[in-house]
Structures are given as C-alpha cells and as structure tokens.
C-alpha cells in the first residue's frame, strides 16, 4: 500500500510542475496546448525511434500510439475518472501507457495515487524521474498492459508483465466477484488490433483470469467510436450487432464517459498525422472514454468461469452467420430437439441469430448446459481445439 497523503495544494502543484513537468515542458511551443497537430514535446519520443527500429526485429510495424496531449483534455478525463466523487482521497488508479504523462500529472494534482505502466523506455525514464520527485504518490512500472500474462510459457521478458506481480506491487488483494471494484484502470487502447485487445479483455473477464482474478476491475478506456458503437449496438442491427456486442453487454456495464475528437490527441507519427482508423459505415469521429464495469451478476445461473469459453464459442458460432435462423444453427450443432428447447425458452421458432438479446444467449446457453445432448455433441470438441487459438 502506498502511504496515504493529503492532497497537494496549489503550492504543491507548483512544486510538482517545477520538479517534474518543467524539464519536459520546456521545449513546448504554445501550440501543443491547443492540441495542435505538431506536438514538439513529443520529441521525447523521437530518440526512441532508433530503438523502435531495433524492435522492428520483433514487431511488424511501427505501432501508432496516441496520447492525451492537452491539459484541457487531461482535466476533462480526470473529472470523468473522479466520477463526481468527493474530491477527497482517491483510490489507487492504474494508468497504462501514459506516455508523456500529461494526464498523470493532472491526476496527481487531484490527489490520485497513480501506478503507471509504461513500455517505452524513454517515457519510462521520464516518468521515473517524476516518481522520484514525488513522495510515493506515483509508482512507475515498466510494462505493457496488453502484454499481460502472455500465453506462451517461459520466462517473462519485459514489457510483458504478469498480473500477479503487478497486483502485488499495487498492493491490491483479490476480492470476491460480487464485492466492490477493487481497482480502477485507465488507458488508451492502441488502435492497432484494437478489436483483438477488447476480445482479450473479454476472455479474461469471462474466465476470471489475469486482472479479473482480483475481482471486478473497472476499466476506463479510450476506444474508437466505431468500437464503442459495436459494443453498445442493439439487436437487429445486423452489421454492428456482433458476438463482441453480446458478450460485452452481458459482461460489462458500459458507460460512455466522454467523447473527444481525434484531433485532441497527439500521435507518435512523425508527420503528426492523426491516423484515424478506418471505420467503414460506422461513425468514427471521436475517441470515446468508456467505463467497463464487470456485471456483478454475471456468474449466476449456469454460466461459470470454467465453462465460459464454451459460452463464448457458442456466441461466436452463432454470429458466424448472423442472419440465419436460430433453429437452423441449433440443428447444425447436431441438436435434434431444438424445437422443445426453443419452446421452453419461449423463443419464437423463426428467430434470427442477430435478433436475440444478449440475455437470450445466456438463457440459451444455460438451457443447453442442462441438456445432456450438449456434452455429447461434437460442438464440444471444437471448443477444446479453438479455445487456445481464439484466446489471442
């Protein structure tokens, strides 16, 4: 546990600026404050370029990272994170990939105790000097949030981190699922493989593994608007209502905290481009701050962390052909009494996969669990084979 401290006053803030921020900010021109395209202070990232090139050995392409660059935005985000709570002492907050640490400073100012997880060694060094200048309010760890608990066996090499170690450092102990949120996490989801990362989080939650072993960890994530649209889509919208939607809505309470135009963020691109991900037909003008709180009542009924992968597989299987009829899909899983099943569930016979509500899927799964046919069907083998590969 970090030592409790009184929130810093204005003077403290000044000190902080003097000690921590100034070296970083001295090179800034005014334009970055207005979230301009060119963000000179990000020149701190520049020396890392060689290293990134070195790392190109391992990484396929330069990863575009996005940062909160203007204090205005930082303040907004901070307010969202405070969530109207008293401005009193704040719980621990894990911030991953803080980059230059603009938000970090804002949070520290507001009295948060922050643990920062940074993989870029240059940012890391800078943050470390900030850590040193403070009295334990900030803790910096070298690591990449999205390389937590990798599947491969063998020794962990940074920036991969293990959740065990991380939570030990955080001083957060595991709590039961139904207990309160043990930890808040904030971070910006890298747009590369954004979807995959969300999937991974979902898997972890359904299986209560990785960070979710410690309870219902609350995520505050910046995700692209299109992914937000997918997460919150309503049944019947065949294009955006997807397996991810069903699983997310069932698993999380999804709360939109803030929408911010892409241009407010700085990127690591040399030309200062915004690198807005393509979205197809979905609106995608914003970066959305979304709060994902795991549902307290997720593991009620037949769904358990141990059989959750089967459930996920079932949902994915269902959405392989979203417009097919539920009956047909059930039949294709070699369930020949699907008639009875549907009647019991009070689902109409001609229901189409993409029209079912997330809760319906859960009920369906529970019903299937209870029927002995399910274990017998070869559907089950497929889960075994696929779990590992699905689980990125």
């Amino acid at each position, binding site marked *: 546990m970090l030592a409790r401290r009184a929130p810093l006053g204005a003077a403290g803030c000044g000190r902080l600026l003097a000690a921590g921020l100034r070296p970083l900010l001295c090179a800034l021109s005014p334009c970055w404050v207005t979230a301009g395209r060119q963000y000179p202070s990000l020149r701190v990232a520049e020396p890392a370029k060689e290293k990134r090139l070195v790392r190109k*050995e*391992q*990484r*396929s392409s330069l990863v575009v990272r996005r940062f909160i660059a203007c204090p205005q935005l930082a303040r907004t985000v901070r307010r969202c994170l405070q969530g109207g709570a008293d401005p009193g002492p704040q719980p621990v907050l894990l911030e991953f990939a803080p980059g230059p640490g603009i938000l970090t400073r804002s949070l520290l100012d507001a009295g948060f105790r922050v643990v920062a997880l940074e993989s870029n060694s240059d940012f890391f060094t800078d943050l470390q000097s900030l850590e040193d200048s403070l009295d334990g309010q900030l803790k910096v760890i070298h690591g990449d949030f999205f390389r937590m608990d*990798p*599947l*491969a*066996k*063998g*020794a962990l090499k940074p920036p991969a981190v293990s959740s065990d170690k991380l939570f030990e450092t955080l001083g957060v102990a595991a709590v039961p699922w139904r207990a309160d949120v043990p930890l808040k996490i904030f971070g910006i989801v890298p747009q590369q*493989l954004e*979807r*995959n990362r969300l*999937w991974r989080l979902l898997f972890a939650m359904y*299986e209560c593994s990785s960070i979710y072993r410690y309870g219902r960890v609350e995520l505050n994530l910046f995700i692209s608007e299109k992914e937000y649209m997918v997460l919150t889509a309503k049944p019947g919208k065949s294009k955006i209502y997807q397996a991810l939607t069903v699983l997310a809505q069932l698993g999380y309470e999804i709360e939109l905290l803030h929408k911010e135009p892409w241009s407010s963020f700085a990127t690591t691109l040399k030309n200062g481009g915004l690198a807005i991900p393509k979205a*197809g037909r979905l609106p995608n003008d914003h970066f959305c701050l979304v709060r994902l709180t795991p549902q307290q009542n997720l593991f009620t009924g*037949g769904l*358990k962390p*141990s*059989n959750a992968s*089967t459930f996920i*597989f079932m949902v*994915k*299987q269902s959405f*392989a*052909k979203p417009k097919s009829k539920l009956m047909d899909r059930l*039949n*294709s*899983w*070699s369930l*020949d009494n699907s008639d009875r099943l549907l009647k019991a569930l009070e689902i109409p016979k001609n229901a189409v996969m993409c029209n079912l509500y997330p809760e319906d899927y859960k009920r369906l799964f529970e019903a299937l*669990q209870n029927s002995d046919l399910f*274990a017998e069907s*070869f*559907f*089950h*083998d*497929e889960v*075994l*084979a*696929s*779990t*590992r*590969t*699905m689980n*990125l």
Partner: protein
Amino acid sequence: MGWQGTSAAGTERGERCRARGCCGSGPGDGGVRLWPDPRRSELGPERRGSAGLPCSPGSATARTLRRVPGSDPPRRGRHGRQGERSAAALHHGSCSSARRDSRSRRAPRRGGACAAARGARGPGMWLLRLRAVLRGPGGLRGPGIPWRIFRSYSSASTKEKANRNGPCERTELLEVLKARAKQLQGSNVPEVTVSKVELGALDNDKYQEAVVPGPKEKQPIPRARGDGLSQSSTWAKKLQKEMYSQHLKMKQELGSAASQLALEGQGKVQSTPKAKTMKIPKTKAATAWNQSSGSAHNKPRVVEGKEAAELKRPQRMPKDRTNQQALQQTIQCNLECFLFLQHAEEAERYLLLCHSSPVKRKVMDVGAFNVVMRIWARKGSLSRLDRLFSILEAAGLQPNLDSYAVALQCMGRNQSPPKAILRYLQKLNSSGFHVDELFQKCLFEEDEKEMVLWAIRTVQPNYQLPPPPIPKICKSSLLQDFYSRETMGSYPKVDFSEKELQERFQQQLEMELNNTVTIESVEAAKPLTPQAIKARELLGTLRSQWHDAILQALQNSKRSMVRPKRLSKYSILYPYLCLLPDEEYVDIMLQILNDLSPQGESLAVLARELGTKVYDRYIIQRKLRSGQLKKVQKIYENYIQLLAKGSQPKHYLPREYWEKLVAEAGFGPSLNLTTCSWPCVLLMRLGMHMLELLVKAVKVPRNILNRRLESKPIPVLYHVYSFYSNWQVGLIRPHPIFSQLVSNAAETTLTFNSSAMPMLCPPVPWTSPSFGAFVLNDTKLMRFMDETTYHQLLLEQCPLVNLHPVLDALNQLGNCAWKINQPVLDIIISIFNDKGDEKLDIPPPLSEAPKPPTPPGNSSTWSKTFKHEVFLCKKKAAEMHSLRMDALYKLSIANYVRDKVFWFPHNMDFRGRTYPCPPYFNHLGNDVTRAILLFAEGRPLGPKGLDWLKIHLINLTGLKKKNALQERLEYANEIMEDILDSADRPLTGRKWWMDTDEPWQALACCMEIAKASRSPDPAAYISHFPVHQDGSCNGLQHYAALGRDLSGAASVNLVPCGLPQDVYSAVAQQVEEFRKKDAERGLKIAQVLEGFISRKVVKQTVMTVVYGVTRYGGRLQIEKRLKEIDEFPEEYLWEASHYLVKQVFNSIKEMFSATRDIQNWLTESAKLIAQSGRTVEWVTPLGLPIIQPYYRSRSTVLNCGMQRLSVKTSNSTQKPDTVKQKNAFPPNFIHSLDSTHMMLTALHCLRKGLTFVSVHDCYWTHALTVDVMNQVCRQQFVALHSEKILQDLSEFMLEKYCSSSSSSTEPIAHWQKRLMEQLSNVPKTGEFNLKQVMDSTYFFS
C-alpha cells in the same frame, strides 16, 4: 514439407527434402512441419514444387494473353466480415512451442502455418489445405490454355495490314454500330426503342453505303467484303425477325416473362448510351485503330484486334482486368460446355446474351463465336453458321483461321454447293490466310479434318494436304552430341514383347477410363471381428440409401434449374450438371463422403475437390468424344515398337518417334485438346452446389448405434465454423455417429484416382507442353498451385524446339521401369500391421495413441489444464492418424503393384525440377518407400558392382561420412557379418540395420549384398538395385562453380581431395570460433552455448541456406535441434537459436564469399525488376523459360448458398510481390541450374545406355554403371558451368527489362538506369579451375 510422410522423427534425408520443398516458397520456413494427409498429398507434389505460392500470369507475356474483360460484376456485396476476418487472422500466429514471436506477424503466411502447426489435425491440416486451395487449383491438372493461343499467325499479318486502311476502318466502325443496333433489336427491346435504334441504323446504312464504294482498294478484296456485308445485312434482318417471333412466343409463357423483362431492362439501360458514345469519338477511335494495325503487325493476329480495342479505351480501368480475364474464361467455358452437350440453341442464346451485355461484350473474342459456330457446324447447319459469321464480322471481330475451318467443316458436312464454299475460301484468302494453314495450325476433333478437306476438294479437286513439317532439331551447344544423328544409337528396350506392352496399355487405359481404382489396403490381412461385419453391412445399406437420396436431390435441383429463371446464379451451373451422367456426380459425392476425416474438412477444400473431380471426368469424356483416345491408342500401338524387345532398332527418341507417327497418321482428331480450363470460381461454385446437395440429402437414423433413442433421421454432415483469432472458417464435419460407424466397419478398401497410381505401361511421351504422361488423365508439363496459366502460357509461346531437351529428359525419367522389392515390403507390412514402429518410421495405428485422462464428471467443470491435456491428446492422435493414413496409402499401392512392372510419368515444377506424377507412392518418398523400389531392369554387377553396393550401404548408414571411399568399403567388409545377419534375420537377429540413418534402404541393401556375395560369381549376379550418388550440398556446389570460388569449391568437393570435405563441419567450426570470441567478450548466450555447437545443429540450416531459408526458418530449425539435446537449458532456447542462426549465416558469408556476391546480385536484381512492376523471368541453359509466379494476391468473395467463400484470384495484371520475387530468385535460379544439370546428365546417360533416375540432386543407377554415371555427371557439370551462365542471364535480363525500344522518346527513368547498372554489373569470378571437378571423387558420392 510433410508430403513424403516422414514422421516427426524424420530422417535427415526426409527433412532435407522437406526444407527444400519449402524453399520454393522463397522465404522458406523450413522449420515448420506440416504433417502429411492423404488428401493433401494429392496436391502433394504440387506443394513440393512450387511450394504453394500464388502464381499468376506475369506481365511480360501479357501481350499474347487474351485480354479480357468483364465478368460477372465483381461480387463484392457483404463480404466485409469475412475479408476483415481473414486479414486479421493473418496477423495472428504464434508458434506452438515458441514464445509469442511478434515476428510471425510480419509474415502472414507463416503465421498461418504456425497456427496450423499448433492446431490439431483437424484445424491444422485443413487450414493448410484451405490455404492451398485458396491459392488455386492444384492437383495433377492445372487449368489449360485457351486454345487460341496455340497458334500464331504472324505470317499472315503483313497482308492483313494492307487490308486495313482508313476507309476500311470506318466501315468496320459502322459495322459495329450496326451490329449494336441489331443486337438491341435481337434482345427484344421494347418497341419504342427499337424504332429509335432502327433509325440510327438506317442512318448508318446510308452513310456506309456512301463510304464503301468510295475508297479504292485492291481489286478482289473489296468485292469479297461487299459480299460479306450484303450477306450479313440480310442475315441480320432474318435473325432479327426470328428473335422477335421467338420473343413473342416466349412472352406467352408466363414463367419466362419476368426474367425476360429483367434482361431487356439490362440491355436497354446500358446499351443506349453506349451507342451514343460510340459515335462521338469516331475519328479518335479510327486513328487509334490505324496505329494499332501499324504497330502490332508482328504480334500474333488473335491479339491484334483486342489490342486495338484496348487502345480505344482509356487505360483507367486496370482493376477490371482481373475480372475481365476471369469473365472471358467463364464465357469460353460455358460455351465449350454447350459444345460438349451439343446444345446449339442454348449456346447461341448465351452468346447473343453476352454479346448484348456491354461488359461481357468487351471480353468477347472470336474464340467465343468459333465455339458456337462449331456446334452448328457439327449439326451441319450452314445457315445458322452464316448468320453468326456475319454477326461476328459486324461486331468488328476478325474471323480467324478456326472460324474458316469451322465454316468449311460445316460445308463439308452438309455437302454444300461449290459456290458457297468458294465464297468462304475467297474470304479466307482475302483475310490473308492460306488454305494450307488450316491443316497446319488448326486443331480438329472427330472427323472435322476430313470434312474440311472434303469441302476444299469440292472446289479444288486436286488439293493435297500440306506435307508435315520437317522435325526441327535442338541446337543447344550443350546437346550437340546428344542430338547428332551419327552418334544416335537405338533406344533402350524394355523387357517386354510388343504384345505384352499392348496388354499393359489396355490395362492402364481401362484403369483410367474407370476414373478411380479401388484396391485392398494392406490392413486387409487382419481378421474381421463380428462387430466389423455388422457395421459393414449397416454401412452398405446406408450407402445405397444415400446413393438414392443424393441422386434424387441432384435430379430435383436440376429440374428446378431448368425452369427459366435465367439470371439466377445457379442456372449457369445447369449445363455443368449435365456434362456427366447423373450417376457419376453421385459417385463423386459419395466418394467425398467416404474420404471425409472425422475432424471434418474445410468447405473450400471440399468444394474445390468436388469441382475438380467433375472437371477431370469431363476432360476424359471430351477426349473420348473427340476421338482423341482412339488415335492415341493407334499411335501407341506403333509407338511401343520403339520400346519392345525384339522389335526393329529405331534411331529415334520417344518424342521424335511419337511425332513421326502422328505426322504419318495424318487424319483424325488432333491430340492436343482445345479445352478452356474451368476458372477457380466456377469449380468452387459447382463444388459448393454439390456439397449443399450432399449436406441436405445424406441422413442417418439417430438411433443406429443406440437403439434406446427414438428413431429420427439426422443429417450426417454438419456445417460449423471454426475460429482462428478473428478468422472464421466454415467446416463440414461428419456426425460422430457416422465416424463411429466407419471406424467400426474398419473397411479395408481404398479408392484412388487413377492418376494416383503408377502407370502400368510406359508413359505417353511428352511431345508438347499439354500432351504427355497419362493416357487420359490430364497432366500438365509444369505443375502449379494456382490458377496460373502463366507458366503454361510461357511454354506454349516458346518455340517447341527449345523445349525438346526438357521433354526428352522427362520422357527419359518416365521411361524407367520399376518393380517392388517384395521381401522388404513384406517385412514393412508385417510391422505396419502389428504395432508400427516410430523409430523405423512406420507409423503406429491409432490404438497406440496416448489415451486422454478420464474426465472428472461433466465437461463443463473441467479445469483449464485438464482441457488442454485432452486437447493435446487429440492433437497427437490426429497427427498419428494422418501419418498412418499416408503410410497406409503408400504401402497399399505398393502392395497392389507388387507383382507388376510399373512406370512413374514425370513432370516438373516451374523451375524445371522434375517429379513423378503419382503423388503417394514414388521414388521421391521417404526411406520406407524408397526401400521397396527396384529397377525392373536387371544388370550384372560387373567387376566393381559389389563394391559399389557396399559403399552405398555405408553411405546409407550415415557412418564414415568423413572417410574415403576405400575406407568405407573396408569398413563394409569388416562388418560383413552384421550385414549378412541383417539380411538373413532382419527382425530376429542383431538388427544392425535398425541403427542407421536410412534403416529400410540399408536393410534392402544388406539383402542385395548378401544375395550377390553368395552367388557363385558376384560379377555376373543380376542386380536390380539402384545405387545412389548424392551431390554434397548441391546448391553450394553450383554457387561455388558459378563464382569460381576457390575456397568454396574446396569445401563442397569440387576440388579433388583424398578425403570428402564436409561443409557442415566446417561451418560448425567457424561458428564455434565466433562463439568463442563472443564468449570471451562476455556475451552470456555465447557462454551458455559452450559445447553445444555441432555439425548436427547447423546442418539443416546450412543445407537450406542456399535455398533461401530465412533467419526465421533457420532459427526454428536450430531450435529444434537444440531441443533434442537434453542437457541444453530450455530457458535459453530462443536466445540461443537466435544467436546461432546469425552466426551460421555469418560463417557462410565468410566461407563462401563468391556465393554471397552472387546471391546479393541476384537478390538485388530481382528486387529492382519487381519494383519496376515486372516479374522475374529467365531461361535455363537448356532453353526452358522460367517465370517466378509470385504476385500480390487478390481475393474475391463468392456467395454460395451455404456460405461465402473467399477465392484468391490470379491474373496477369497483378503486381509482383516484391519481397517474394526478391527472396526467392536466388534459390529458384540455383534450382533451375541443378535441374538443368540433372537433365543434361539424364540425357547423356541415355546415350550411354544407362538406367537413370533422380531425386533432384541424388542420382540413381545400377551398380554396374555407377562409374559411367559419375563420369557423365561430372562432364555435364563442367559443360554446364563452362557456359557463361551469369553473363547470359545478365544479357537476357538487360534485353528483357531495359531495352528502351518501347519508350524511345521518353528519357530513361531513374529506376531504369539503376536496373541497367545493376544488371550489367555481373559479379566477378574467382580463380577456380572448373576442370578439376572431373577428378573429384566426392563431388557426387
């Protein structure tokens, strides 16, 4: 890769081949193991060869390609999801054991392979197969070449040019407009539009009448033309009327009305504006036409018209070309389909329909018309043919030779009056053709040739067929001796009389006519359990039920298609479902059902397989129908005189003799079939349709195994999806009940395609790129994975005489007769039917598979680790199953031919490496298969033969690699007791043979030595045993010779030396030195590796480095080796292998400096060429043209009822894949050289009367002739490298890629300059004296 079926503990040789196979794929990932799978290995040789890279027609030959257009408008639609997913899936990939290596993301394909390696057989294998399939049709057949390309009419073009002058162009343009108008009428445009267009047409008529008499042309020509025109207009009117009345009739049929309306709408909306636009750019178009006829005069005529069309259109639609090409192919296929069915009316309707669609019209060429005219000609309906002729001309297309041949054939058939015939003959002459050309260049079927001749003789009673062309002789300097008539001896005879060969041919023919062969598997010897008997009975009844159900479903679906909903996507499949008798389709579907593995199979693979099977049978039917078979039969009868014992000696090569016989035969059908191969999309659609029928029709009572359940029919096949990251793949899986039933029945028959069996008679000699090998089964000279017609095109364009050496070499390899080593086979089968033996590479049966731990209660409560354990067990079982099946196939085929003499017809990959066509059982296989093969021909051992056998045995053991031959021989004599013991009591004795590198071949060799040494006179002992001579690191040998690299040459045995040099040990030493230095500098990993660096660790990587293994693949190879060392600390595996592969690469660079230079030069040249947007091409010293088939692929999504499929399409307009072009060039170039060396050796061995076969760089012959072969091999190596190979390559490429004639006006671009510099800057060579190779004992040993 996995095709040879080497087990996990593959022998070194096996691995080596595997690695080489991979490297064809350029950035070879030699480390990833794929396991063999029965069905996949049908594609097997394919993979071996071009190792599965997308191929496609390249740009350089694009001008002769049909350029064609449009297609069904690309079906884009709602495929976003699938596309997205597959893209994402490519990102995903980590190797089973390896840490998540983000590098795999860089190489998407590899990622896939890794995923496959990780998955169980189910997922893994079908993923691979899926990938193979998505890349295009593999198998033994590849798509053929549109027949138009067979001919080039260059001789005609000058005259033709004269015909095309300005005014003429304008008339042609008017004709186009007129035809347009006619079509509009023809396709039932509502009255209002008709009148409008009619007006336009009238206008044009007037204008045209004003123009036509105006220009002064050479006398006879305009008249002929005028004739044609007047004819055409009357015909056109008639046609118009007919169409109209037809339309009226159709309107009365309620059913058709709707669809017709749809048609009209399409025709109207799109064609009206077209007519307008055509008018405006009239002058422009005319000039363009002029230009084109001016510049294109030296191009083949067929292309000319299209080229012109291309010029007319602005070049802004390159994207369309892919589809255009596909569309043209589709149209051609559809029409040919009608031709086969003799559905003249439908064909014509389809033709006119295409003609009236603006998109399709663009792609239509004269070939399409010819097909339809041919149908009418067969029916003898001259009037319909005349009409088409006029439409054809009116459309601005030039009739070609085939058009005239068809017309004449028709007139011959209905015995037309001389006047009509004369009219066509005049036209033919005026188009710049000569009557003789008809017989020299056109391909005929059935009695067409006779009919044409009859027609001509009606007019010119004394007309004589042109004399057959004088056979040309290859002038390659490397083969002067070979082809010189003086030294030519008689061709080696086989040990059969003419009559015996004739009988064997009949057997082979029968087998191929049956399409499939069903044989007893070697497991048949096991006793039957009562349960099995019961299950078989049950399966039997079920099968007959399924047969009826499928038949009914097929007939129903056909019936529903016949109904006139003309535009539905299914209706176009209808003719394809009529090609064969219904029973045959049912057979094909049932066969698929029988072969389905319990893990299921990807939809795409199954669909492709079904489609391909239909295609193969259709081709055979065509061959029968066209009378080709009869002719082949007749010629073969005479041909075997060349081979049969006791026949007159003939101073011919097989190819020459065959050509001579064909020329003498004169009449009858041509042997080259003029078939357009089916595009991949079509194969898939057809396959999907059949699959859907199968899934819907086949049911099994649910209670068949468990009587307590209620009886309810449930489907046998299910459609599920599997997920790989975000990639979803549709699977067809059999219901467990079905799988259980099949496994209970333990059936012991296997059904193979007839092309999977060795031939029972000497193969038909290759005489052209599309004729040879099997009697009926379609085989391509060059195998390719994809839909690439490109290699084949290149071959077609190449003057045939340049291919003679390659064809002769393939014939030579294919003419080697084989038989089975029965004692060895029996021992292998006994072990196989017992419990197998992993150490001896005999895969154990599934009963030996590890059992998964018993599940604690309900599956939902299983823990994660437990699930994983179960998963691993299943994976292992799946792997074992596929290895087992592979071995079962090989052994069963061997057992089937155990008393026969058989032949392996050969073909080659795109680099010229040769492969036997039958995929499972052949001499390229693993140790087990090689051990059961013997030469059918026996030769006495001679004075040194026994010694060679002994040396060969020691070579096979892998012992004494560093010792001189004499020492090996002495060693063999020392352990003679062990050898004899192994031979006498292989399974009960001391089992010396089991502890060798290649145990089974060693055992076979022991037996041979025992027999020989016990015979009264070993020198006279007749041996059938093949003795191998192996190049020592053949790739590096070629590099060293190319660069005349002294030190390199010495380390790969190009320099005579008392002891064999071992390049692997040398590299290991060098690596050890580097390591020591690093260790001293305190590098941790170098210190860890102390004592672990050995020859074995680096061998595979060194071997494959020349073949382009990348660091990625190399690392995997080394990691595997290190893992085998128990003491090596596991946590350092990644780092150590990473470090070692770097050092191996460095060491090789250090040791083979010239190699590095050449490799760099090749790589850099290829890079610049690919960057300039062209494909790397070269010609081997033997004259074989080679093109690297690596293109950026594009996939189209097919919406087939059950599921959308993504199909990779290939075409000439795709950009080359720079990375692959670049990385693969050095290894491919070296492969083209080693194949050249092999072919040269094969041909010269033939002249010396040797039996010779090769496994790439391992040459086989009788013990008696090893010395002669060694000499020839060295001579040919010296001769080959005495050519200025690199200079020639440089010149060829400069000419090809840098000749500025095409753009003389433009300044030379920067890239061009760089390319020129690069290409001219040939690496310098060293001091090595090539002649030394002649005396090097260990060069090949």
